[in-house]
C-alpha cells in the first residue's frame, strides 16, 4: 500500500517537475516561466520527501523558492518587455545542438555508471543530525570543504558589498 502510494507520488512529482521545466523553456511570457520554475522547485522538493530527505526538502523550498526564485522574479519585474519574452536570436540553433548533445551525453553516462544497489529497506529517519555530523565531525566529516565553502561565500558577500557600495 505504502509502496504504491510512494510510486504514484513519485510519478506525479516527476511529471510535474519535467512538465514545468519544459514549460519554463517553452513559454514566451517570462514571468509565467519564472512561476513555473518555482513549481518545478516544489516538485523536486516533493521528490526529496519521497526519498526520506526531509531536511533537504525544506532547504530546497527555503533557499530555492524563498530566495533564489524570488530574486529572479524581482529581476523580471524590472525588465521592461517581460510580457513579450525573449526574441528569437541567431544563437538558437547552436543552443539547440548544445543541449541535445548534453542530453545524449548525460543519458550515456547514466547508463554506463555502475550504480550501487541495495535491497534492504531504508528506514525513514530524521536526517538533520546525520547531515550535521557529516558536515562538522572532526574525524569522519567534511570540515575542511565546509570551511572552504564558507570562506568562498564570505568572499562573495564582501565582493558584492564592494560592488554596490556608494562611491
Amino acid at each position, binding site marked *: 500500500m505504502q509502496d504504491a502510494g510512494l510510486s504514484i507520488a513519485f510519478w506525479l512529482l516527476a511529471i510535474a517537475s519535467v512538465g514545468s521545466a519544459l514549460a519554463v523553456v517553452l513559454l514566451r511570457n517570462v514571468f509565467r516561466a519564472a*512561476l513555473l520554475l518555482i513549481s518545478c522547485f516544489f516538485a523536486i522538493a516533493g521528490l526529496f520527501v519521497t526519498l526520506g530527505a526531509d531536511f533537504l526538502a*525544506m532547504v530546497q523550498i527555503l533557499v530555492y523558492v*524563498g530566495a533564489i526564485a524570488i*530574486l529572479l522574479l524581482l529581476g523580471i519585474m524590472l525588465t521592461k518587455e517581460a510580457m513579450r519574452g525573449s526574441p528569437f536570436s541567431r544563437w538558437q540553433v547552436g543552443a539547440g545542438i548544445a543541449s541535445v548533445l548534453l542530453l545524449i551525453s548525460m543519458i550515456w553516462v547514466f547508463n554506463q555508471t555502475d550504480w550501487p544497489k541495495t535491497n534492504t529497506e531504508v528506514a525513514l529517519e530524521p536526517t538533520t543530525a546525520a547531515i550535521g555530523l557529516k558536515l562538522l565531525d572532526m574525524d569522519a566529516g567534511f570540515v575542511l570543504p565546509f570551511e572552504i565553502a564558507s570562506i568562498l561565500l564570505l568572499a562573495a558577500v564582501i565582493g558584492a558589498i564592494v560592488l554596490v557600495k556608494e562611491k
Partner: protein
Amino acid sequence: MDWLHWIIYVVIILAFVLTLVMSFILIERRVVGRFQLRLGPNRVGPQGILQPVADAVKILLKEDIIPSKVDRVVHLLAPIVTFAPAVLIFAVIPFQQAGNGLFFDLKSTASMVDLDVGVLFIFAISSISVVGLVMAGWASNNKYALLGAMRTIAQMVSYEIPMVLAVLGIVLIAGSLSLADIVDKQNIPFILLQPLGFFIYFLGATAEMNRSPFDLLEAESEIVAGVNIEYSGMKFAMFFLGEYAYALAVSTITSVLFLGGAKFPWGLLPQSFIWLLVKILLVFFVILWIRSTLPRVRVDQLMGFAWKFLLPLSLINLFLVAAEGMLPSGFTWPIVALNVTLAVALVVIWANRFYRVGGAKVA
C-alpha cells in the same frame, strides 16, 4: 498511516484558523478602537461579535472585478497562493503536549504532524506566501501594485535572515528542530533565556506579516494598499484573511517558540491548550499596541534596519548562545540575568551605532 488522525486534524486546524482569524479581525478593530478612544464595531450582535460575519457576507456579495488588462490566470491564482501557506503552517504547531493536561491527558503531542524539521518547515512554507504577493503585484498590471510587490520582495527576503538566525538560538538551546521537542525543553520560557532572540524574531516577524511599523507593502497613504489594489470580492477576502491568518501564525509560533506553548510558566498549573490561546492573544495584543502607536518606516530605512541592525545583532546573539552552550548545566538563573542585561546593553549600543553610521539617516 492513520487516516482518521489526518482528517480530524485538518478539520481542527481549519476550524481553529478560521474562527481565530475571524475573531482576530474583530479583536483588532475593537482593541485599536479602544486605543484611539473609540468603540469600534459594536452594532452587529452583542458587542459586535457578528461583525466579521457581516463583513464576510458583504464581501462575498461584492462584484468580482477582473480588470481587462490583467494576466488572468496569475491574477486568479495569487490569492490562493498567498492564503494557503498561512494555514499550512499550523500543520506542525503542537497544540498540547503529551502527558498530563488540565482537562484531559494525551498519549501523543496534539499536532497534525510532529515534523523533525518543524522550524525549517515553518520558514520554508511562510516564504511561499511572498510568491503569491508577487504574483498579485505583477498580474494586476498596476503601478502601485508593482511598487508594492517590489517592496514585498525586498522586505521579506531581508527579514527572513535575522528571523531564522534568531530562532537558531532557540534550536541550539533545545537541540532539536521539532516544535514539540522545543516546547518540551521549555522548563522556563525561552523568552527569558533568549530575550535578544525574541526581540529580533518579533521585529522580523512584524515585518514578515506586514504589520505596522513595517507595513510598507500595504502603505495605504503611499501606494494605496499595494498589491491588492485591483482585487475585489472574494479574491480580496483571501488576501485579507491571509494577512490575519499570518498574524495568527506569527502569534502562535512566538507563543510556541518563546513563551512555552501550551505549558503554564514553570509548570505551576497543568498544561493546556487554553494557555496557548491566552499567549496567542497576548502576543497579538502587543502587535496591536505597536500598530496603534508607531508611524511607518521608509523603505530604505526598513532595509537598513534589517541588514545593519537586526542581522549583526542576530549574529552576536547566535554566538552568545553557542558560547553559553559550552557552560555546564545548572546555571539557569545567572544565565537569564546575564542574557537580559546583555540584550538591553547590546540593543542600546547597537541602536546608538546604527544612528551614528547613518542607518536611519538622521541629519
